[in-house]
């Protein structure tokens, strides 16, 4: 069965490849994407794109758990300054395994830039002055699931992981019981169940609210059986860590899909090692299931509340109580007499300690909201994004704890963005306190509103992890409470767009649960747009990346001036200018000390600098839009000597000028 599938997909890949080759004309770029690509197909497309141009190189920065390469494509004109000295944009796709659209957009961005290198003057300038780094697929193992014979949508990588901590690893995943090739949800009639059929859209489920006289009639599970006989269904399937919850800002400690610790996975580590070795990265765009681009941070610096689907969360919640299995109350100690030399300090609990008694509130807390001073740049990028792509609202997006783009801003200190990369065709942007017209108006306050934040985690597990969480990062983690379940809004929008996103409930006789119904959201349908949209979306995102590149700071020495005072004494002055849009460092880049200052140095022996600025001078922040800063040195020198001055902006490039003393 498996072999057969591989043969078919290889054949399909071959056809796509042939088609692509046939359409590729010398010097005019390549055919655009018309389908989602598995790893081998993606690799072939990347290779053929890169081989067709002098402007791009492709390297592997590591391998996934299952041994797939993590590709990075470096784009820039190889003549001129070294790429790592130019201001750079970093584009990331497919950190979440199910967000395969991110790979397609990243691939199309590469194509857009390489095509533009042929005939687009703006792009030619970008490729001469700047660098674009693209990671099309950080989670190649997770992405392969989209191409499996049975489709089960999940974000995580292939790390074997004991999700339910029962000493057995990956022993109870879902099964495609009804043979439709999809893992969906089972609803089981149960008079004491928590859930009822939604009164508005009978396809959907809601949590019954007993205070409104509602009564639950169903229990919900993921499709499958209790493979390990522990009384829970599908609680420990293959795979382990959601890479986009594995990074350092607001890291969700000790949650089962966040990994054992920050940056624990080979994939996340490969990305992180690349980023910290490329301090020239001045802006980040990460395609993913979080958003701060369609809706920029609000005036208090919080990202928009998440909006996720209830139905999968309800199914997840069926296993919430597993963490309480095997928790037994304290037993009576029954007598080991050797309490040897115990006692002496009374209660045994320590209050004040001898020696120091430090203030528990002392010490600085990390920022959890976007700095007010930086919001204009996020707003401007958002406006540009919306006008280029036409995307005004996104479907589902989740809370950003541990997301890579959050690291990019809060710890790497640069403008850093995330977008799901596609919009819902007919969805209205949600206003606070306002529901989508029609159906949703009558929808009473549902269970979703009461659910704690935590993305697609089960409600019960959320409560548990909250209680056991030992490492809060302080304060509200970057915004993102969960709004109402997005089910009705998303489904009606997908319906309106003619996307078959829901598998209708059908009867099935389950081996242990008896008569059940199987149905629910079609895997991948709410996370990825139809394949025919990819080419257009890709072109738009390529254009946005180009816009972002032109927003990067660009620091040059624009004026030099020499004044002779006689006796071998001269004043040398320079002005540097930032002709980009972003400042050389965001305010948070300064606050977090993660962006180096812009440094200007006059290359004479230190003892020849008599007064004025220090030989090596710097400015923490130089705003864009042609802001300037002047530096002046009074030096001792020889008439006719040539003196070099260099400017180094970590995110804005390097420049140098030479003056002659006379």
């Amino acid at each position, binding site marked *: 069965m498996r072999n057969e599938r591989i043969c078919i997909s290889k054949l399909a890949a071959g056809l796509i490849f042939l088609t692509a080759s046939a359409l590729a004309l010398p010097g005019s770029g390549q055919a655009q994407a018309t389908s989602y690509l598995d790893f081998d197909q993606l690799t072939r497309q990347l290779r053929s794109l890169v081989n067709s141009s002098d402007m791009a190189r492709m390297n592997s920065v590591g391998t996934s758990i299952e041994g797939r390469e993590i590709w990075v494509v470096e784009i820039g004109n190889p003549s001129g300054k070294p790429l790592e000295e130019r201001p750079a944009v970093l584009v990331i796709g497919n950190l979440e395994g199910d967000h395969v659209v991110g790979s397609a957009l990243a691939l199309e961005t590469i194509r857009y830039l390489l095509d533009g290198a042929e005939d687009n003057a703006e792009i030619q300038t970008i490729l001469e002055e700047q660098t674009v780094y693209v990671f099309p697929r950080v989670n190649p193992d997770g992405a392969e699931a989209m191409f499996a014979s049975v489709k089960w949508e999940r974000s995580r990588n292939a790390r074997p992981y004991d999700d339910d*901590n*029962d*000493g057995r690893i990956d022993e109870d995943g879902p099964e495609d019981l009804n043979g439709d090739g999809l893992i969906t949800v089972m609803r089981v009639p149960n008079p004491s169940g928590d859930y009822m059929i939604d009164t508005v859209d009978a396809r959907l489920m809601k949590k019954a609210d007993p205070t409104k006289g509602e009564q639950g009639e169903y229990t919900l599970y993921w499709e499958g059986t209790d493979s390990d*006989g*522990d*009384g829970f269904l599908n609680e420990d399937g293959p795979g382990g860590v959601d890479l986009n919850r594995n990074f*350092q800002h607001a890291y969700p*400690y000790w949650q*089962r899909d966040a990994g*054992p*610790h*920050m*940056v*624990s996975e080979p994939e996340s580590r490969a990305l*992180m090692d690349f980023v*910290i070795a490329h301090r020239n990265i001045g802006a980040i765009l990460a395609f993913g299931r979080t958003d701060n681009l369609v809706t920029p941070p609000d005036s208090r610096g919080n990202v928009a509340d998440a909006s996720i689907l209830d139905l999968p969360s309800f199914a997840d919640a069926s296993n919430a109580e597993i*963490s309480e299995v*095997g928790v*037994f109350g*304290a*037993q*009576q*100690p029954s*007598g*080991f007499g050797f309490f040897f030399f*115990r006692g002496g*300090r009374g209660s*045994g*609990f*320590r209050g004040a*300690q*001898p*020696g120091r*008694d*430090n203030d*528990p*509130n002392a*010490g*600085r*807390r*990390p920022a959890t909201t976007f700095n007010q001073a930086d919001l204009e740049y996020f707003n401007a990028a958002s406006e540009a994004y919306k006008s280029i792509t036409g995307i005004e609202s996104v479907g589902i997006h989740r809370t950003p704890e541990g997301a890579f783009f959050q690291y990019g801003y809060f*710890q790497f200190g640069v403008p850093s963005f995330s977008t799901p990369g596609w919009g819902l065709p007919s969805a209205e942007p949600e206003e606070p306190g306002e529901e989508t017209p029609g159906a949703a108006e009558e929808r009473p306050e549902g269970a979703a509103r009461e659910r704690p934040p935590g993305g697609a985690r089960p409600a019960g597990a959320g409560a548990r992890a909250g209680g*056991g*969480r*030992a*490492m*809060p990062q302080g304060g509200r983690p970057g915004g993102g409470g969960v709004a109402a379940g997005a089910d009705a809004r998303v489904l009606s929008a997908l319906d309106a767009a003619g996307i078959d996103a829901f598998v209708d409930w059908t009867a099935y006789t389950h081996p242990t649960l008896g008569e059940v119904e199987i149905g629910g959201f079609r895997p991948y349908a709410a996370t990825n747009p139809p394949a025919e949209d990819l080419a257009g979306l890709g072109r738009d995102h390529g254009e946005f990346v180009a816009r972002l590149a032109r927003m990067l700071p660009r620091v040059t020495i624009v004026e030099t001036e020499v004044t002779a005072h006689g006796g071998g004494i001269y004043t040398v002055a320079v002005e540097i200018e930032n002709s980009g849009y972003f400042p050389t460092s965001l305010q948070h880049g300064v606050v*977090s*000390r*993660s962006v*180096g*200052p812009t*440094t200007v*140095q006059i290359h004479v*022996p*230190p003892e020849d600098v008599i007064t004025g600025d*220090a*030989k*090596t001078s710097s400015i923490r922040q130089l705003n864009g839009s042609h802001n300037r800063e002047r530096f002046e040195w009074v030096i001792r020198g020889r008439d006719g000597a040539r003196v070099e001055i260099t400017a*180094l902006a970590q995110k804005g490039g390097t420049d140098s000028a030479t003056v002659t003393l006379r």
Partner: protein
Amino acid sequence: MNYVKENRMVTRLGAAFLAIAIILAGAPDLSAQQRGGSDPEHRLPLTWDRWLDHAGMAERMRQMADTWPEFLTLTSLGKSYGGRDLWMMTINNPSTGPEMNKAAMYIEANVHGNEIQGGEICLYTIWYLMENYGRIEEITRLVDERVFYIVPTVNPDGRDYFMHGTGSGSRTGHVPVDSDGDGLFDEDGPDDLNGSGMIEQIRKYVPGEGTHRISHDDPRIMETVPSGETGDWILLGSEGIDNDGDGRVNEDPVGGYDPNRNYGAGWQPNYIQGGSMNYPFELPESRATNDFWMTHPNIAGAQSYHNSGGMILRGPGTAWHGTYPREDIRVYDELGENGERILPYYNYLIIWQGLYTVHGGSIDWTNDGLGAVSFSNELWSGSLYFGSDLLREQQEDPDSPISGQKSRFFFDDFVEFGDNYVEWTPFDHPQFGAVELGGWKKYFGRINPRFTSMEQFHRNMAFTLYHADQMPLMSIGETTVENVGGNVYRVRVDIRNERLIPTITVRARQNNVVRPDLLTVDGNVEVIAAGWVPNKHRPGPTDRIDQDELDRIIIRSGHPGRTTRTIEYLVRGSGSMTVTYSAVKGGTASTTVRLR
């Protein structure tokens, strides 16, 4: 002269007589010697009066591994940035079971390069356990029951830099860091300008314009002048020049981070926790160590030796983490308070409260991320220079020759004969002009004086071995079988953890980082019901266990310390039945009963 032997001859006359008797009798008779007193001949005579560099420690570990090959295994956890092996000694008695079936004590030292003496304590611990195995009953039992993983230096680059170099800037590891943000790495550190082999302090004579003056008590002491007055001296930092010609002195020395802020619990970025690097376990040393930890869940206790201050530290490193759960605190308090009795002048403290806030330190990770009860000892204390109540009282009196800064000079002058201090001497500095260089040598202050080593090493080892002995240890007590009709039996088994530490701490359960204990049944039986017996001497119902697999019961909350619990099974079957309790941090205990 060998310190150990000399000491013995002076103080142990009885033993000396016995030794003479043994020599006269011909071949040494160890059993006779053992009867006569605790002064055994050593199988591998080692002295403990030198500090060893990385190569020296490796050599000593090889010697020990060759001497006791049945117990000792020397492996490398990986390489440091500078390519030095992170040597680890495993102590395990294979005849009492494989490593992973026993609770393990992990001991490391020297994460800060200049905090060297913990490395020697690690070596001493290996040596002491081996020399006394088979001789001292408690040591024999400890080695038979437990596994030890001992890493004498987790920062060998820093250790060698400290020992071979000038002693400056040795806390850090040696991954290059661009401390001044100029795109160059480690290009301008301190320099030994006068060739003295150490980095001294720089002072400059600036009459009437300085911030410091020379003390009336002792011309070697530089005092800050009170506000409103001026002094004749300024201090200009550490010995060094502007190496990279950028007009700044010593602005980018080697490394420049704190290796003990690079672990995975409570990690914070640089602007919150200086020196933490970019992400946890970024450094090759912390990463190699953690790779080992993650594959050795049998580690139930951890000790990390630092210096200085005379402290037995536990987490949390920051107050934000909240307090540990009550049950965990009770365990820590008993260990820590007994530690204070084992280690005079050491205080048992919480890191953030009694020392300072630490984000991403190693013992927060071993406690929170691995579920191992963890301490960090700050070796050596200033109190030990004048270690009596009378002298400490004198130190409170400002006129006493051993108060304030004077105390160090007094100790150096009269106890170490001035070995540790370098007098101020003139020097012509290329940037600062005429200055003077001087100060304390690198081994003084944080490292114990060499002559005190034996006591420091032994007492710290003793605390760590006490901690190791209190790791969970599962065993089976009384069992009963009662036929209740037909083929149905009531089987009761007492399950015990005789030691203080539970098999799973409350924090470990909250964080879900330790595999639950498993209670399994094998044999030709079907388990009908199972439950805990609240009190086997008082008849009553059992606390029924509501799990679907009663032949594999999951116990997430583990087994508390110093507790016996009685499990009752109702089984149908015949022949024999084996009940096994398995705890990853407490070993495996098993019993087989006959059903009749």
